[in-house]
């Protein structure tokens, strides 16, 4: 698994939701940095990759775990 520069534990959250945590973190991250969001919200598995694609950011990895997923996105611009 790739290593992240910043890890956000958003497990158990419904609102504002792990995707918003990711967007917020990417907005403040440096270009080249990787943000990892831990999430138990099944919607994140599709939403975060979809956002990364629309925003032109790089989806690094989605790791499925027992108590949630880890989703890693690199800020490329």
């Amino acid at each position: 698994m790739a290593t992240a520069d910043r890890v956000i534990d958003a497990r158990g959250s419904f609102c504002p939701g792990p995707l918003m945590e990711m967007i917020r973190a990417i907005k403040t991250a440096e270009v080249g940095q990787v943000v990892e969001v831990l999430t138990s919200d099944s919607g994140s598995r599709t939403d975060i990759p979809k956002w990364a694609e629309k925003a032109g950011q790089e989806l690094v990895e989605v790791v499925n775990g027992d108590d949630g997923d880890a989703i890693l996105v690199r800020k490329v611009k």
Partner: protein
Amino acid sequence: MPKRLLVVGSGTAGLMVANLVARALEGKLQHHEVEITVLGERDDYIYQPGFLYVAFDLMDPRSLVRPVRDLLHPRVHFVHDRAQRVDAESRTVSTEGGVSLPYDYLVIATGSRIRPEEVPGLAEDAHWFYTLDGAVKLREALQDLRGGRIAVSVGIPHKCPVAPVEFTLMLDAWARTRGLRDALEITYTYPVARAHTIPAVAAFAEAEFERREIKVETFFNMESVDTGTHVLHSQEGTDVAYDLLVTVPPHRGDAFGGASGLAGAGDWYPTDRQFLRVQGHDNIFAVGDTTDLPVSKAGSVAHFESEVVADNLVGLLSEGRRPGHTYAGRAFCFIETGLEEATYISFDFQHPPVVPTPSRSIHFFKQTYNQIHWASLKAVI
């Protein structure tokens, strides 16, 4: 020496915590065993949910403002000044006015504020209903409106998760009653994949928007505004042209937390989700909008969190009892869906909300709450 509780912020959470503890410990306050001080940069309290109604000329702005002193328990001290820095070592908070206030327990309830300046051009060209002045200005703009393209654009993070949906649905209903709706094109933009972060609210809003011919742009995070051509650009590369731009700007915590080295990114306080203590400090609590918790920034959350923190403070102040009451992520929001109907959501960390069918009676409850709120702040109900 009395035990000292200092509360920074005289908004919803600050007043509730101070009043709840004061009511529970009246005897100790009277005998100077406990002392409670609220430090607030404003000496009036403003009921923010009223801004939505001010924008549509449905409430008098003056009815939303009351002196802090009238809302505080008589035995709670009020210091009208701005907190500048916390020194956790010496357990003091210094103020802009040059005063140093000591504490045994500190509650930080400094809320969240809009930061339109984070999006270049936004402050110059957009309206908002997230401050009292802004709501009054927007009211004037709406009174002058004869038609055109209105964009309602939402930034993250922001307080009151449902207010943008409410504003948009109320705008539609308001325009219909004025015979203006056919002359308007309304576009709602939202930062995530759906029209709202909460799936049930998103499904509800998307169906309503479609039925009312309101356009939706998702994955739209405001990046800049071209004030010459009146075009809003997103981080994702999409544009929306407008004649009237109404925004919910992204928010931040108060800068005082960062200056004290206690708050993190966005000036939000890293807060433990059970006891609401600021990370690394057993005697400092964060309540309301200013936490970094994955919960809505809403008055109801401030209320439920205040109850938990106040109960724990009562134990700590009276007998040094370890905090036992925990916060479960409880939140409740009314959703106005027009000028005469409303619905609501109720949820916590473990239970996502559902959206009941809107009704006139729920709208009536919300109108009633707008009055009850004052008693709730005083902790008399």
